[in-house]
């Protein structure tokens, strides 16, 4: 496959365990140059952990195995310096809670200049000029006057813009946005999404967009990976996944979204909760909550397979197009058991 060599980042069989509890069960994921990939799933499914692990940002008690390649160069298992070389300069990351992600006791100008001097060797006036340009680019009004302010003097949305400016300072090839809009108001969310889309168009950097918001993912990304309980369960283009979700979990995520257009419909929640990583169910991790589960799902775990049309899926009984969902029947049956 020629495709492998053109990938910017390749994750292979990435596994993470905290104190012996496996939370990531072997993630295989490619990110092409300039590509925007979405990672969706409920809280605790391992979306963030995947990328924190890939960048070596997990605390020491986490044990990470598998392969993380950037331009074919292996990072996993390497020394701390190897990660430090990559972070910020090649792969930048922004986080869910922008206000607490900026250092409260350092002026924002200094925090951005710090990244500029680290990755581009800029100091003094040129660094300040470049920082102001970045602040302008991410839409911080009156940047020159506010250069010496502290993070608490900015709103949450502006803090996220500051985080993005700081991420851009290293001119990264890949920006990982870890739920960048979750902590923000709806109107601000839309602005930040627009900013991310616009910046990607201008800089050509690849984007990994981690979110549980399918709507946001569909705006930003071309390709989506759906994660459940530490595994990728379905992967495909946004168009494919949105028009024809095959994994019952993906379908469940869509059915739980309210629709503005069309007739009023009752939302269909996915019953139950994400399983505790310590006690994953036998077979498919999703089967206790799945409306299509059969005997085989309880004893054997489906692996992620590439189908003829290039989509990837880990399910024995995929949803057929336009098949109605019958979650209630499933729930009652479970209750009787």
């Amino acid at each position, binding site marked *: 496959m020629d495709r492998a060599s053109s990938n910017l980042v390749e994750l292979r069989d990435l596994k993470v365990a905290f104190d012996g509890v496996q939370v990531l069960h072997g993630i295989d994921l490619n990110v092409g140059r300039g590509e925007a990939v979405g990672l969706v799933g409920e809280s605790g499914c391992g979306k963030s952990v995947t990328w924190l692990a890939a960048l070596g*940002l997990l605390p020491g008690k986490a044990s990470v195995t598998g392969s993380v390649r950037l331009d074919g160069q292996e990072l996993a298992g390497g020394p701390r310096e190897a990660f430090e070389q990559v972070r910020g300069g090649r792969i*930048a990351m922004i986080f869910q809670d922008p206000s607490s992600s900026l250092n409260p006791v350092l002026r924002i100008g200094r925090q951005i200049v*710090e990244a500029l001097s680290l990755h581009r060797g800029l100091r003094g006036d040129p660094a300040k000029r470049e920082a102001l340009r970045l602040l302008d680019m991410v839409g911080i009004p009156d940047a020159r006057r506010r250069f010496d302010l502290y993070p608490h003097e900015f709103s949450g949305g502006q803090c996220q813009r500051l985080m993005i400016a700081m991420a851009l300072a290293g001119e990264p090839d890949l920006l990982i946005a870890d739920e960048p809009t979750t902590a923000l108001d709806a109107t601000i969310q839309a602005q930040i999404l627009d900013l991310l889309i616009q910046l990607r168009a201008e800089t050509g950097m690849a984007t990994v967009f981690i979110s549980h918001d399918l709507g946001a993912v569909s705006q930003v990304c071309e390709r989506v990976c759906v994660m459940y309980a530490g595994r990728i369960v379905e992967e495909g283009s946004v168009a494919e996944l949105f028009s024809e979700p095959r994994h019952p979990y993906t379908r469940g995520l869509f059915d739980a979204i309210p629709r503005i257009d069309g007739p009023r419909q009752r939302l269909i929640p996915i019953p139950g909760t994400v399983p505790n990583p310590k006690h994953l169910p036998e077979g498919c991790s999703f089967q206790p909550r799945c409306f299509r589960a059969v005997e085989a799902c309880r004893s054997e775990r489906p692996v992620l397979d590439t189908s003829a049309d290039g989509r990837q899926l880990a399910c024995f009984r995929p949803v057929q197009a336009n098949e109605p969902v019958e979650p209630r029947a499933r729930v009652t049956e479970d209750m009787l058991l």
Partner: protein
Amino acid sequence: MIRFIAVRLLRAMITIFAVVTFAFVVLRMSGDPAQVMLGPDVPQEAVDAFRRSWGLDQPLWIQYLAYIKSIFSGDFGVSMRDKASALDLVLQRVPATLQLTLPALLLKLVFGIPAGVYAALHRQSFADRGVILLAVLGFTIPSFVMGLLLVLIFAVILGVLPSGGQDTWVHGILPTITMSIGGIGILARFSRSAMIEVMGQPYIRTASAKGLKWRDVVWNHALPNAAVPIVTIVGFMVGSLIAGAVVVESIFSWPGIGRLLIVSVSNRDLAVVQCILLIIAAAMVVSNLVVDLLYGWLDPRLRSNAAH
């Protein structure tokens, strides 16, 4: 900012006033200086004369008003024992006390903070457990036990250091170490927990994600944030510099403020005790004020709160 300082100063004055009043009342209720000074077998006339000459025959509130008035005119009274100015007596002892407390403070800072920070950065390691164990031992062993233990080892068994007195700087070694051990333990514990708290914050992850070297993450991003709780404790230590240490100075026969306090209390030398307590309270209050101002300098969030 001026309002902030004014409010703090007013509060400081009230604190000192409360300490002075409390000391005044308690001292006069806890024993008769005439009896103590003159001894048990003195005729009643002598006792009465003594009390008259020091104004002790007056009602308590008149004594108190006179005392407050004299404080405001800079007169801290006269020692009943030495007939000298109480303030002079106390100030004479300050250098001896600082000879112990300043080096002890330095030891606390130099060993306590780095040990705590190192432990926090190497959590669950052998070094971390060692620091915790030593820190707990350090501040749970009372200073009289620690002092006697050190005397036993270094003066009695090894015979390398003197067990008491103030003749040379070598005499200061054991008392200084005794004084610093508890503080080292406290600072190590505090620095460790402050640092652990800070290292778990999202902005530390941001600093790492930015590509900063580990050393720069710790020095430029973590330590400035951990400084606030550490400064609080150091402030207390600075405030008590002048108070010396009653127990340690007694064990090592060191003629500092602490010893003067003990002698003066047992003699009911009212003016001297009051003067010492006033100075200690003032030092504490001033260092607290400085700490409050430092908070604003260290943490801009507190600065903007204080300004409003």
